[in-house]
C-alpha cells in the first residue's frame, strides 16, 4: 500500500505504470487478475461558473492516517492485494489530476467495489478542502455530493 499527498502535479497513468512494475508485479506476479482505478481531475466549471484554479488545503498527519484507516477497512471487506492512493494539495489548474485511487485484487468484483468504496470514503472523510478561484473572487466548496 502506498498513500501519497503531494504538492506537485502528477501523471496518474505513469504513476500506475511505475507502481505496478516496481511493487505490485514484483510481489504478486501472476496473482492480480484485476485492477480498478479511479482518477479525479479538475474541471473548469462548477455550479454554473467558470473555475480558473483551485487551492487544496489538508490536515497534515490526519489525512494520511484517515486514508490508512479507509484502506484497512476496505481490506476487511474485500480481498485486496495492493492499493495506491495519490492526492494533490496546494494550487491546481483545470485539467490537472486531483486524486488517484487504485486497487489490485485476484477478482474483479473485489477490485471494482473496493475502489469505489475507498473513493467515496475519501470524499466523505479525508480532511481536504477545496477553494475555487473564479474570475474575480474565490469560494470554498460547500460539501461533496454523494456518489452512490
Amino acid at each position, binding site marked *: 500500500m502506498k498513500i501519497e499527498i503531494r504538492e506537485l502535479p502528477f501523471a496518474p497513468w505513469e504513476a500506475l505504470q511505475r507502481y505496478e512494475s516496481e511493487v505490485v508485479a514484483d510481489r504478486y506476479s501472476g496473482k492480480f487478475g484485476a485492477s480498478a482505478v479511479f482518477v479525479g481531475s479538475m474541471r473548469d466549471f462548477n455550479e454554473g461558473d467558470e473555475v480558473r484554479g483551485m487551492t487544496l488545503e489538508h490536515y497534515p498527519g490526519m489525512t494520511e492516517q484517515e486514508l490508512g484507516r479507509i484502506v484497512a477497512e476496505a481490506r476487511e471487506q474485500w480481498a485486496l492485494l495492493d492499493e495506491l492512493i495519490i*492526492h494533490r494539495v496546494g494550487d491546481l489548474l483545470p485539467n490537472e489530476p486531483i*486524486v488517484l485511487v487504485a486497487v489490485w485484487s485476484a477478482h474483479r468484483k473485489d477490485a471494482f467495489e473496493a475502489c469505489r468504496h475507498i473513493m467515496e470514503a475519501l470524499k466523505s472523510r479525508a480532511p*481536504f478542502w477545496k477553494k475555487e478561484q473564479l474570475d474575480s473572487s474565490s469560494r470554498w*466548496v*460547500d*460539501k461533496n455530493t454523494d456518489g452512490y
Partner: protein
Amino acid sequence: MTVKVKFFASLKEQMGCDGATVAIGEVATAADVWLAASGGKAMPTNVLVAVNMEYCDPNQRVRSGDEVAFFPPVTGG
C-alpha cells in the same frame, strides 16, 4: 491543563487563526475546548471534530496535550 487547537479551511478564515494552545479545566470535552478557543461562540452544527487526528463526537473527553481540530465538511477527491 492545556490542549492544542487547530482550525482548517473556511473555519480558519472565520476564526482568523489556524490554531492556538488553550488552557482549560481538567475535566473538559472537545465542545468545551471549542467554547474556550472561540470566545464562547456556538459551534456550527456542520463542524467536524477530531481529537488526535481521529474523528470524534464533540462530547468526547480530552486530555492534557491532546490535539483538538475543528473543521468544515471535507471536500477532497
